[in-house]
């Protein structure tokens, strides 16, 4: 009997050794868009630790995280919504929820995951635990006319804000009762292409493609309606062609100012975060796609649309100037800061690798192979509004 107990305890110990306890704060994932794979990574070791396959068409895929950072919800272009366990490195559940999807969000309390879809145009809410469909809001902006939905962002109190590309409106849907959502509509402007919520959750901004300007809705006082900021920033000059739509999502607020990509101009526009007046514009290398603030707000990193997408520029927010131009690899599609911003990870799609830079010295401090990498998403997003 004693022998048996000894054996049992050895077995138990070895079983525990197989699954050491660990947190999720330094984990994340890289989307490998062509092959439908995810590479799971660790920002402390600066290396991948597992690969998950079977996620379908991941072109333009994005991710949100459960509150504990353990589960990633991946929204694929093919309408797939996949829940992945980062600790066990496996797919927990996968549903095809639409024909053509562009991304999604998770509610403040972590209980509802909402997908935004191009076809059929609208949003759908799912139980974050089971991925069971709770309700949907078709983006029918006029009888029989449906719009593509862009810029979905989580607002406070179970609300979600988003914009309608064809509809030219901002909608705010309240999922207090997840099965009976209610929606408010606000005129926004011509062809909103993406949106973001400020880090405090107060303002929702929708960038406009069809006109020079950005629609701004104060979610604390939505009854005041959306106002237009940066109106006519192109000064009537002819636009340069835009070979890829900018992405507003990401933290572009720094030091009380918002840094936004201009459409059809090789500029980053700077807006005061209280008066919402333009306070500057910074010339950059190409059409900005992502304009992302380092978590402390000292730097803004900018990547570009085709054909300038093999360079990245860094703006110093103190001087308001570009202080560094880097060539990290071919076709830089995305950038992600470590939780406190000492490093940034960049995906070089055409070099099939992810590169890691020190944000203080601009030295390359790591690199690993990944097949046509696009989005990089760290679990630190779990605790941020608008991510």
């Amino acid at each position: 009997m004693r022998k048996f107990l000894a054996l049992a305890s050895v077995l138990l110990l070895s079983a525990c050794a197989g699954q050491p306890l660990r947190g999720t704060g330094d984990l994340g994932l890289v989307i490998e868009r062509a092959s439908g794979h995810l590479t799971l990574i660790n920002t402390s070791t600066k290396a991948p630790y597992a690969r998950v396959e079977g996620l379908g068409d991941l072109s333009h895929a994005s991710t949100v995280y459960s509150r504990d950072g353990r589960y990633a919800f991946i929204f694929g272009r093919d309408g797939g919504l996949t829940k992945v366990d980062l600790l066990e490195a496996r797919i927990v559940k996968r549903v095809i929820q639409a024909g053509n999807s562009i991304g999604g969000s998770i509610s403040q309390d972590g209980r509802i995951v909402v997908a935004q879809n191009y076809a059929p145009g609208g949003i759908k809410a799912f139980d974050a635990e089971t991925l069971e469909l709770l309700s949907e809001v078709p983006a029918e902006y006029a009888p029989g006319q449906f719009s593509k939905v862009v810029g979905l962002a989580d607002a406070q109190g179970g609300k979600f804000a988003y914009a309608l590309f064809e509809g030219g409106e901002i909608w705010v849907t309240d999922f207090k009762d997840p099965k009976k959502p209610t929606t408010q509509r606000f005129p926004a402007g011509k062809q909103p292409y993406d949106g973001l919520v400020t880090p405090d959750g107060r303002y929702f901004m929708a960038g406009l493609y069809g006109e020079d300007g950005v629609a701004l809705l104060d979610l604390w006082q939505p009854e005041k309606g959306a106002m237009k900021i940066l109106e006519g920033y192109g000064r009537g000059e002819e636009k340069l062609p835009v070979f890829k739509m900018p992405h507003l999502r990401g933290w572009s607020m720094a030091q009380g100012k918002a840094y936004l990509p201009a459409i059809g101009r090789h500029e980053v526009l700077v807006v005061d975060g209280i008066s919402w007046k333009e306070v500057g514009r910074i010339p950059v290398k190409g059409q900005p796609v992502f304009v992302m603030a380092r978590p402390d707000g000292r730097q803004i990193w900018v990547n570009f649309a085709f054909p300038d997408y093999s360079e990245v520029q860094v703006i110093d927010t103190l001087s308001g100037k570009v202080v560094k131009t880097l060539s990290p690899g071919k076709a830089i599609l995305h950038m992600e800061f470590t939780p406190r911003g000492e490093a940034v990870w960049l995906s070089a799609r055409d070099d099939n690798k992810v590169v890691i830079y020190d944000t203080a010295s601009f030295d390359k401090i790591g690199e690993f192979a990944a097949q046509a990498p696009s989005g990089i998403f760290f679990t630190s997003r779990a605790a941020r509004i608008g991510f």
Partner: protein
Amino acid sequence: MKNLHYFLMIYLSLAASAASANEPSPERAHELVRMVRQDCGSCHGMTLNGGLGPALTAEALKGRDIPKESLVATIVGGRPGTPMPPWHRFLSESEAGWIVDRLLEGFPQQ
């Protein structure tokens, strides 16, 4: 007989130059396929099933029944009022024509 030979020579060389005008080199063809899948794919989807821009699969294009010349003109010159930009800086009209032919028969994978 000599004349016939002469005509044949001219005919063959003309046919060859016509083919080379429409047919990019294998390297260039590879680049164009990659460009369509990856860069056009930003809006039209990597599988060309559509995104912000419409689907470009053979089925979708045939369903919309657009003349080839219009498709070529859209690629080369863009479509004002929509986000479709002009691509003439990066390809010639005959290369756009080659892309349209490939799209209509089902676009190759990379």
